[in-house]
């Protein structure tokens, strides 16, 4: 796999980018704070999830995407939706199951999408399902010549689902332009990560697919953004899917109902002291990017925005009962016109130009069917041939011991090339 493009890590953030990250983190938190209020006022339907303390991940990763790119949020990615352009009112109304919400009250929380404009795929509750779906979007985008990247998120807990494996493996075989953010917040509901995943670093999941991965401090907005930008650039450049483990902590319970007594209080205290917004504010002011006045401006802007958005949301009616009966099926062109947005010449994929020989070529071997141009028949691609001599008893040279080697030995350099290392090289 090629070396990561240097510019990914070298890229300085522009002043506006720093401020954008700040604004969206603040907005993310403010939107969720307001929803906690609404929840306490019994205006939220169903459960309410929180991304408190994880805002840098949602915001920093989504900010690395372009407008044409696609994302699919999970429950703790309100920040990503805001960055992508979703209005707070839509988020409020989704949670309040209002008629003017994107799903008209048919679904709630972050379960909504926008195929045409914002390029957002709605999640479902079943963890992991978005991974093959966003792989498919990435493949379709490539096929249509759109040069897009797709992104979704998964939790430490969700990384144990079968569909995580099937999806990421498929993405890897297809080299799909797909970036997966693994939000390791140390807990899946009440279960600590070590009870679900026997790994120190969940980024190691990537090794099962031969794809590159990064580990990033999920409470460091700039770090998250920079890594995500590099990953998005690399995915767009055709390097295949990339996994980013963002390490952080779920500061609230699984949802509002859960006091999370199972979390050691020292652990919570540790992370509360590392609040991503507080850390970022300290950084911004030390860099003279933020002062009390500009901070106040951001706060005022958000306050007045959310006041309007909340009012709109609260004024929206509940959906009329009969709406429940409608919309199970697309009724045809009057309902949706399905059309692919081609950004490459259709002729490239239309016969007879696309004709190929239906033949496998396996590195090191001739091809099947009309096989002819074979190379030297080696064992297995570029792996060393296994030893031909079988073992015998200890008195002889080979010792009856297996011609075995550990996996880690056999393919050492493949995924090793670190952002840390390239940073060092550049210093």
């Amino acid at each position, binding site marked *: 796999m090629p070396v990561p493009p240097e510019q990914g890590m070298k890229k300085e953030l522009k002043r506006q980018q720093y401020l954008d990250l700040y604004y969206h983190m603040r907005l993310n938190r403010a939107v969720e704070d307001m929803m906690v209020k609404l929840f306490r006022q019994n205006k939220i*339907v*169903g459960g309410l999830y929180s991304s408190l303390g994880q805002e840098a991940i949602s915001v920093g990763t989504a900010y690395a995407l372009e407008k044409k790119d696609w994302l699919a949020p999970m429950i703790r990615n309100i920040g990503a939706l805001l960055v992508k352009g979703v209005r707070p009112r839509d988020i409020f109304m989704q949670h309040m*199951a*209002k*008629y003017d919400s994107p*799903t008209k*009250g*048919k*679904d*709630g929380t972050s*379960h909504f999408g926008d195929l045409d404009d914002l390029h957002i795929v709605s999640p*479902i*509750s*079943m*963890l992991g399902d978005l991974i093959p779906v966003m792989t498919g979007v990435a493949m379709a985008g490539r096929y249509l010549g759109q040069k897009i990247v797709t992104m979704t998120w998964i939790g430490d*807990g*969700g990384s*144990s*689902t*079968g*569909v995580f494996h099937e999806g990421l493996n498929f993405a890897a075989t297809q080299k799909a332009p797909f970036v997966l953010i693994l939000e390791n917040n140390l807990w*899946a*509901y*009440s*279960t600590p990560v070590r*009870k*679900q*995943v026997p790994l120190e670093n969940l980024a190691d999941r990537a090794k099962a697919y031969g794809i590159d991965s990064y580990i990033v401090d999920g409470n460091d907005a700039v770090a998250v953004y920079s890594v995500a930008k590099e990953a998005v650039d690399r995915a767009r450049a055709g390097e295949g899917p990339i996994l980013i483990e963002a390490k952080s902590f779920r500061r609230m319970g699984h949802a509002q109902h859960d006091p999370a007594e*199972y979390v050691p209080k020292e652990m919570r205290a540790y992370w509360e002291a590392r609040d991503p917004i507080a850390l970022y504010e300290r950084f911004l002011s030390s860099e003279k990017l933020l002062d009390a006045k500009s901070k106040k401006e951001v706060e005022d802007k958000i306050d007045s925005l959310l006041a309007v958005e909340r009012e709109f949301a609260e004024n929206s009616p*509940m*959906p*009329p*009962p*009969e*709406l*429940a*009966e409608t*919309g*199970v099926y697309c009724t045809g062109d009057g309902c949706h016109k399905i059309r692919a947005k081609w950004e490459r010449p259709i002729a490239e994929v239309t016969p007879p130009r696309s004709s190929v020989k239906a033949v496998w070529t396996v590195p090191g071997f001739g091809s099947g069917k009309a096989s002819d141009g074979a190379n030297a028949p080696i064992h297995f691609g570029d792996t060393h041939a296994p030893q031909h001599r079988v073992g015998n008893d200890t008195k002889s040279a080979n010792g009856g011991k297996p011609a075995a080697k550990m996996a880690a030995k056999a393919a050492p350099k493949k995924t090793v090339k670190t952002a840390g290392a390239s940073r060092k090289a550049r210093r």
Partner: protein
Amino acid sequence: MPKANGAGPNGSASDGTQVTFLEAIKQAMFEEMERDPAVILMGEDVGVYGGAFKTSEGLLERFGWERVIDTPISESAIIGAACGMSYCGLRPICEMQFIDFIVCAFNQITNFVAKGHYLWNAPAPMVIRGPSGGGVHGGPFHSANPEMYFVHTPGLKVIYPSTPYDAKGLLKAAVRDNNPVLFFEHKFLYRRIKGEVPAGDYTVPIGKAVVRREGKHLTIISYAAMMHTSLEAADALAKEGIEAEVIDLRTLLPLDEETILNSVKKTNKCLVVHEDTRTGGIAGEIAAILFEKAFHDLDGPLVRVASLDTPVPYAPTLEEHFLPNAKKVFSAAKELARY
């Protein structure tokens, strides 16, 4: 939706204490685990947290980490591992955090677990249980009634109780059964209904329906939360002089045809109420059975009251419209009675 009221065994009062539906389930697991060290519990957050609905609260403290196992988020692994355990003589209980996630293990259940006894004589004594059903604004992914997928799968047994008494007795029976049993717990009932549960050990036989209310004008067949809806409707009907006999199926596979047929032969009319979506719901199966075995006894058509053929919508206004309720049952029953 249901009224908060749970009948005792066969509708009669027992001399036990009043417990919630949820407490009855917890008691069943506790007592079975006490009785038999081969019984273990597995699922997501069932241990330290005691389950998303606290159904297994206290079990870890009592039985330890080996017998109360917090798993990764891997429904196929839970079911598969339980099946393997059952081959060794254990009797695992698997919790699906919400029953909606059972479809993530659909292959394991329908192919591995269900077919083993028939194909290679391997019994799989295991229970798969979890909170199901709607009415609590859980939305399209936390309100499932997946019973028909499994009623249509030979090799499984399917239970969907409506009272604390039955929940406890049937769950105990399920644990002791030599077959894989799916046990659905309607979450609307968890804390809303209470009922009497006797002090000592008892089981309720799998495969037996029960007449919850006697009547002569028509038979209303239902189960789970809709049982209570049906009883509520029956009360209202009685005020108009219509005496509905109400049957609680309790077990959906195998179906208790005898109880159904006896009642329909008496009342000559049959209404089926289920919260599951209409097309392909169990009312169809009952319709076919009535054609086969009670065609002459029917003085009117079998009538269905069921949920809409849609996903479960989120907004309360929509979900209410989606679900059957006592008014809908009342009207349908009244019309049928007058047929």
